[in-house]
């Protein structure tokens, strides 16, 4: 018998937490994007676990769409990082403070 769904759900919650902590504390835009990928993967893992437990293919179909959106997000995000780097010679998000009041 396969391991219970709860184990995978707890693992995914831990992965999400690590990704969220990294997103809140790191200041390099590239590392922040990687942390967003971690969080998206945690959500994908929960979707697949629910799909297995509920015996329904929809969870896996939604994971497929999440992957497509993640690919588009990374493309645009890295494009923004490249164009910001051209102006500021840095990827630190702390230096982008023009809108500060």
């Amino acid at each position, binding site marked *: 018998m396969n391991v219970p769904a709860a184990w995978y759900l707890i693992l995914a919650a831990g992965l999400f937490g690590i990704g969220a*902590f990294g997103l809140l504390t790191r200041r390099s835009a590239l590392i922040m994007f990687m942390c967003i990928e971690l969080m998206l993967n945690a959500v994908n893992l929960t979707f697949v676990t629910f799909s297995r437990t509920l015996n329904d293919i929809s969870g896996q179909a939604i994971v497929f769409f999440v992957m497509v959106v993640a690919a588009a997000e990374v493309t645009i995000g890295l494009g923004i990082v490249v164009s910001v780097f051209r102006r500021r010679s840095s990827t630190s998000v702390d230096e982008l403070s023009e809108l500060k009041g």
Partner: protein
Amino acid sequence: MIAAAYSTPSVLVFATSALLILAGAIGVIAVKNPVHAALCLILTLFGVAVAFVAQSADFLAAVQIIVYAGAIVVLFLFVIMFLGVDRREHIHFEPLVGQRAFAAVGVAITVGGLIALMAKSHWVSGATSVTTKLSSGGGNVRELGTAVFTTYLFAFEATAALLIIAVVGAVLLARRERPPSGEEA
């Protein structure tokens, strides 16, 4: 929830994937060099692919390796090397006082609340097999393909438009503004 009811291979596979996922994730947020962080990200993505295989999501595991580890991480590495930002970030320098502590408390509350809520509601609740059964014969790829091209056809077409928009947007963002040739430049 008592152990010993689960077969040893599945427990071992779960332990392997959990080790890969957690070690990679901690590596991503802890190492200083962005290149090393990208390599740790591959470790995590591989662990998630192992977990997908263990839960009979074969097609998604393949896509996970091909698209995530093969394309997205390579894109990260390409941008890191293109920009030359592989120098180390000062990871112990904390510009906002108490930022780490607040982040840790917030994340702990979120994850703890999430796990407590799931445990209270018997982890998984809801109707089973609403769309298509997972094991109706014919294999995972065929079932997923049928679901994507029938039930989720509209969403699938929308992702096609999204990808086109993303490609055009990335080209526009990365394009260098050239001064008009010949005229006052």
